């Protein structure tokens, strides 16, 4: 299978803090590739580099055969790089439907149209509605996005990303703070997307990671310490020591402890 | 180009630059720490100049007058915070612009009512009416040299405070990452008040020092405010080093441009055209410099390195 998103030798430092060091990553079409690692491992930095919000100090990024390293965020998005944010990022004062319609608008035709009302534009609203139905938010289409519950916002973000039919979808902790029942729905949805795009998943919930992922990459201190099929990664001694080893220099905060517990639970199964 | 004139104009440029620095330093730190835009900062410069002029005429003591400038400006700055600024810290920039614009037109008019629209007399202090003989034979007013010396000393002091004292380090840290200071338990609000007060006093001092060489009249702060903005944009918002660099750049570009640009254009253009284009270009020069900096480095020459999220 060919790589739809490829990172080679990515490096990024913030002063003395190394957030990415000679980082290689390959995302294939139609796979779910999970990136895990303790807090501060550089996962969010990696997403920032891939999406174009951060400039790498070194290395390059290739999307579907095209070097996108010098491109800004919006140009990468236009080439088919969709994403959701760690903290849901929607347009709160717009309706749910309009949030998705704007995503359609980014792809469909020109946005330099000055006179016709966008709100009643069926060429935008039609696809938006079917995307909302797909994530199960169809009934909430006319509500302002600001009134949505936390989990519903996550779904809305996903609907906005999906309606653009991206080649690659970057998901930053899609399950964080989502209630169990909703999480189940979300997982099923992600599973169904595998056939349409490559998904790069950053997630703390190890159960979800090992259930969904075709491959797993483990980051620690900005470096890849292991990458491969879930079963291999689970057995990898370096990974086990990174997650289960002694309290190394207290660099991990309490969220790491929580992760460590879930991690251990998953590994034992 | 006459080398003596060049020397004199270089000194004039440095002198203008250092005055600008005194005004811009406080302003840039206020932006840096609380992301607040304060159009009334130029008013403090005017208040300093008026306070000094009044004290000078009433008492005849120049030292007293130069002291009155920063003190009254400090009081005005704190009053400004009490009465207006503290209500708009959390508001968006538009609200800050309008509220401080309201203050600015009010104070300008108040000064006009109290002291009249004409410039206030501000004689050179006794002992400073002479000129210094420069190498080569030109002369230079002692008072302008005093401004250069005072500006340089204050700039040095300011950097010393910012890099060597605890309060100064907190101020610099606040300009880089205000949220982090809040977490460390530092009262950013008080720190801000400290910077605002210091900035007001510096601006007032600049007004007092500039008094004898500029026209002390209503609205005199507007001009310096806009120049300070150019300085800050050019140097990099929130950066005191940037403000110093930007001030000297703007001071020199403005002064040298006004005295030499027309002559230089004569080399390339017919005299009549040069006489017409020269002054126009000279008055726009600092803005063109700013545009050039924006094209090359949108965040200014010496931007503050913001902490990564």
């Amino acid at each position, binding site marked *: 299978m060919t790589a739809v998103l490829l990172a080679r030798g990515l490096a990024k430092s913030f002063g003395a803090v190394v957030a990415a060091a000679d980082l290689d990553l390959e995302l294939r079409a139609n796979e779910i590739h999970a990136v895990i690692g303790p807090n501060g491992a550089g996962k969010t930095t990696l997403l920032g580099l891939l999406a174009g919000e951060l400039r790498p100090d070194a290395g390059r990024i290739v999307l579907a055969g095209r070097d996108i390293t010098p491109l800004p965020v919006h140009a990468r998005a236009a080439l088919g790089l969709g994403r959701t944010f760690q903290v849901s990022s929607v347009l709160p004062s717009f309706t749910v439907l309009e949030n998705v319609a704007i995503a359609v608008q980014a792809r469909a035709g020109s946005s330099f149209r000055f006179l*016709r009302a966008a709100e009643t534009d069926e060429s935008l609203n039609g696809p938006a509605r079917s995307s909302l139905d797909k994530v199960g938010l169809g009934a909430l289409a006319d509500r302002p996005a600001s009134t949505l519950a936390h989990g519903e916002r996550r779904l809305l973000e996903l609907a906005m990303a999906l309606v653009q039919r991206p080649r690659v979808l970057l998901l930053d902790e899609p399950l964080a703070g989502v209630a169990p029942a909703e999480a189940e729905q979300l997982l099923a949805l992600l599973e169904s997307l595998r056939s349409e795009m490559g998904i790069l998943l950053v997630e703390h919930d190890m159960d979800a990671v090992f259930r969904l992922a075709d491959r797993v990459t483990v980051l620690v201190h900005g470096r890849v310490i292991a990458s491969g099929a879930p079963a291999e990664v689970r057995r990898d001694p370096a990974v086990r020591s990174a997650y289960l080893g002694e309290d190394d220099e207290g660099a991990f905060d309490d969220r790491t402890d929580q992760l460590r517990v879930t991690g251990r639970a998953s590994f034992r199964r | 180009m006459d080398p003596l004139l060049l020397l004199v104009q270089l000194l004039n440029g440095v002198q203008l630059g250092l005055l600008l620095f005194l005004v811009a330093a406080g302003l840039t730190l206020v932006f840096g720490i609380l992301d607040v835009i304060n159009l009334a900062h130029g008013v403090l410069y005017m208040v300093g100049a008026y306070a000094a002029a009044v004290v000078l005429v009433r008492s005849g003591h120049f030292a007293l007058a130069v002291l009155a400038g920063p003190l009254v400006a400090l009081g005005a700055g704190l009053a400004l915070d009490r009465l207006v600024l503290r209500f708009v810290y959390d508001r968006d920039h538009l609200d800050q612009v*309008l509220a401080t614009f309201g203050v600015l*037109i009010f104070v300008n008019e108040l000064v006009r009512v109290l002291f009249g629209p004409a410039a206030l007399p501000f004689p050179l202090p006794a002992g400073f009416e002479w000129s210094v003989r420069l190498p080569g034979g030109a002369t230079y007013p002692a008072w302008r040299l005093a401004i250069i010396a005072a500006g340089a000393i204050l700039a040095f002091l300011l950097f010393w405070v910012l890099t060597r004292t605890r309060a100064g380090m907190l101020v610099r840290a606040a300009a880089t990452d205000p949220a982090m200071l809040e977490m460390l338990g530092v009262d950013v609000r008080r720190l801000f008040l400290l910077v605002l007060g210091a900035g007001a006093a510096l601006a007032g001092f600049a007004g007092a020092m500039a008094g004898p060489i500029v026209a002390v009249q209503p609205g005199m702060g507007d001009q310096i405010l806009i120049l300070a903005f*150019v300085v800050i944009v050019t140097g990099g918002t929130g950066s005191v080093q940037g403000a110093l660099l930007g001030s000297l750049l703007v001071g020199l570009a403005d002064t040298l441009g006004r005295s030499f640009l027309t002559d230089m254009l004569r080399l390339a253009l017919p005299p009549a055209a040069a006489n017409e284009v020269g002054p126009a270009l000279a008055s726009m020069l600092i803005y063109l410099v*700013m545009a050039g900096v924006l094209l090359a480095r949108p965040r200014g020459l010496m931007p503050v390195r913001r902490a990564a999220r």
Partner: protein
Amino acid sequence: MTARPRQRSRPAARAEAILASAVFTAIAALLVIADFLDQPFYLKLLTRALVLALAALALDLAVGIAGLVSLGHAAFLGVGAYVIGISAEHGMTNGWVQWPLAVAAAASAALVVGGLSLRTRGVQFIMITLAFGQMFFYLANSLSRYGGDDGLTIWTRSQFGTWLSLSDRRTLAWLSLSILLAAYLFLRKLRWSRFGRVLRAAKENERRMAALGFAVGRFRLVAFVISGALTGLAGVLLANLTEFVAPAYLSWHRSGELLAMVVLGGLGTLHGAVLGAFVFVLLEEVLARLTTHWALLFGPFLVLVVLAGRGGLVGLVQRIDAPR
């Protein structure tokens, strides 16, 4: 001030239309009355308010809809006015040539200023627009051939053939109202169009819009240029009204006053800018009769408007209209 234009529900859209119609009807009524009473002074005052309302309306596109706080819009007003003055000085008074030229010049100025200023944001954007505005002010000052800081008298108003004479005060007043109304209708369409939606959304969440693939800066630049062009058109009308141009037209205080009008009326509402401009001009007139030092009253008033009046006059009307 944050009277965010929320999603437009049907009743809200109707309320907006009613209020906007009320504003324009009231203006037209004032014109008719001033004309009927044969009061050329008031007719001129009202025309001045119409012209400034057009500038404020244009500024509302930049500030209220696109979120670009420009403190240099007086420059575009001045560019438009100066093109009329300078071309008239050279004997070119054909309005069909002058007006497009003036609007194009203002649009070009906005393109340059906007292109540079949009490389930054927030406080820097405000400072840079102010600084470039000031640059145009000094440029006007140094035009010694065109009066320098004394300004330039326009001996002949723009000519549009026999059927439209701007020398008639009434014609100029009604023409200004027509142009204001057309600009208002255009901007109202624009606000709810695809383009306007991108501007509003980017004001709310720029990061999200970039991640969706929008080159936000390009949209903002186009909005800034449209805003500058319309402000230039206001300058064209102003020059024809006063038969005079001077650097004072480009004063940064004028830019501040335009912002005040927009906020006073209700940011981002468009008809609010029109209302704000009229209230501002009439208030200025009343205060100036009370005292020559009217700024002593107006300064604190402005501070109070900012501190107290969320949503401006339009917001006030809405709150009275729909109490909880």
